[in-house]
């Protein structure tokens, strides 16, 4: 079944919150609607579901990868070319520690950035219903649902006091 989205625009936080309540009452699942804002609000301002993320796993995996790469690079290069310099041991641990440290941090940071993008569900190829007024302070309530329930959602939003209603296409993955 095709997935459609519809966006209602609200001018203040309270009506937007009311709209969310109304959607909830109308039997929409929490995964079917979301608030779009131009600025971060404290969590739960609109009574929306608290987002759950697993971002903290990414830097750990990244750090482990970076550490291993650093270890292999530093010990590997020294063992592959056992050239003596300045009487330092072939496996000089203090310099290895420095480079392994940088490798660990680089791995952690790269994975974190990937994690942020992944957990933010970006990049989003199809914008769906959107309104440029959101970045000017309006609050959007977007409902992403089956084609059959779209008009019902529109009604709920309109009754809650939406200024402007817009429809957009969605892909299955964006639901």
């Amino acid at each position, binding site marked *: 079944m095709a997935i459609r989205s519809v966006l209602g625009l609200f001018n203040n936080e309270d009506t937007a919150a009311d709209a969310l309540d109304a959607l909830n009452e109308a039997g929409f699942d929490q995964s079917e609607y979301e608030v779009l*804002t131009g600025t971060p609000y404290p969590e739960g301002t609109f009574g929306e579901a608290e*987002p759950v993320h697993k971002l903290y796993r990414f830097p750990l995996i990244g750090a482990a990868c970076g550490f291993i790469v650093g270890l292999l690079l530093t010990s590997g*290069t020294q063992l*592959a070319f056992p050239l003596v310099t300045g009487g*330092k041991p072939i496996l*000089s641990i203090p310099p290895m520690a*420095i480079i392994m440290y940088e490798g660990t*941090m680089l791995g952690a940071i790269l994975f974190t950035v990937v994690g942020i993008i992944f*957990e933010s569900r*970006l990049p989003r190829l199809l914008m769906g219903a959107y309104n440029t007024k959101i970045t000017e302070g309006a609050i959007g309530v977007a409902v992403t649902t089956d084609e059959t329930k779209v008009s019902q959602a529109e009604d709920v939003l309109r009754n809650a006091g939406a200024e402007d209603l817009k429809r957009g296409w969605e892909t299955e993955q964006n639901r």
Partner: protein
Amino acid sequence: MQEHIQLDQKQINDDLLSGVLRTPRWWLPAITVALLVFLTGMGAFGYMLNKGVGVTGLNRPVFWGFFMVNFVFWIGISHAGIMISAILRLTQAEWRRPITRAAEVLTVFSLMAALMAAPLVHVGRPWRAGLWVFPYDFARGVWINIRSPFIWDPSAVMTYLTASTLFVLIALLPDLAVIRDRTTGRARVLYSILCLGWRGTPRQWKLQAVAGILLSALVLPVFVSVHSIVSWDFAVQIGTESWHSTIFAPYFIIGAIHSGVSAVATIMVLMVWLWNWDKYLRPDHLDAIGRLLIVVATTWFFFFFVEWIFALYTLEDPEIAMRELQVLQWPWSGLFILFLITAFFFPVPLWLFKKVRRSFFWMFVTTISVNVGMWLERFLIIVPGTMRKQPFVFDWGSYHPSIMEILMVAMTFAWVVIGLLLFARIFPLIPLFDIKEGMVGRDEIKIGRRTVPASIRE
């Protein structure tokens, strides 16, 4: 922070995107001048490629000169961004909001300038500088020597550059969406791609906040390691007088913060003067940064003092001769006095006055002065150290830079200016969403007749 102006989001968009959506009148002439300086420096570099390092003023005892000074200087400046945005983010200081991005961008471009100053123009065979570490010079059958501080350096600097660039880009996403919504045509397509389809859902905002804290926490240790490693380029050496000191790492770090935070204050003043963002960057912010600078400068001075005490602690002739040269012999004595005045004794007593801290003009003058002083500090560490008066007096030598060297140093400054100007033309230099968040999270407590500013914590 007493004064507070509550603005709506449209107003914030209009104000802060003024440099992006329109070209300011001074912008083109400014970037042209910077470009000319840059190209002249590139010309000098070309000449040096053709003739050899002989065109600089470097000579046998003084193997490291202006380029190395400049490298350390830019690495130092680059410490501002993370210092301001990460530490202040982790301590939830409200006044960080308008300056984080400018500081981070300064980090990125000054790191690039540092890379330009050290591996590129510094080495004897710059065409092989790329093979230094990256990619590994495997064609010759030999890997790199990881025991060299010059390998620790690139690993740290590249990590820092990657991290700070990504840090800037991640925090740019919501603001790019704002620009996308304000533009049309090809620009809109470009910004749509750049913002990755940002919509502003609670999930995206939450990750933005977590990302800020997590990345700050991850970048901070890198930031500490970078300048430590740069200082170890010098401190591991036993062949050069006055460098072999264990205090170098913290001493360089705190010096870097001193010069870097000053550079951020300079940029803040310039942002107000050039883009008229006086509603966002107010005397309060300068006041806060001025107070921070007093602490940083004093700590730096303490480390400077300890470094000196322990240089004399050994009571060994070569060290004392070097220090004597540094402070008592012309022209080093003059430079030394100038350094002390510009880096500490001129700005810091002035910052003690609230009027100075809240004045755009005076903050501009004092922070520029700090950076003049900190540049001289690096010069006075690096050059007299290599002049090494003893123990082999046959190798006494002096150093003065050639015009080519000066041009190439100017080139790195021009590069940072170009970078900042281009960035400000394409992206907003003040984070819009951070300002908006500050407006939402702002509250006040009335206690009797007094209003105390408060902020909302979740």
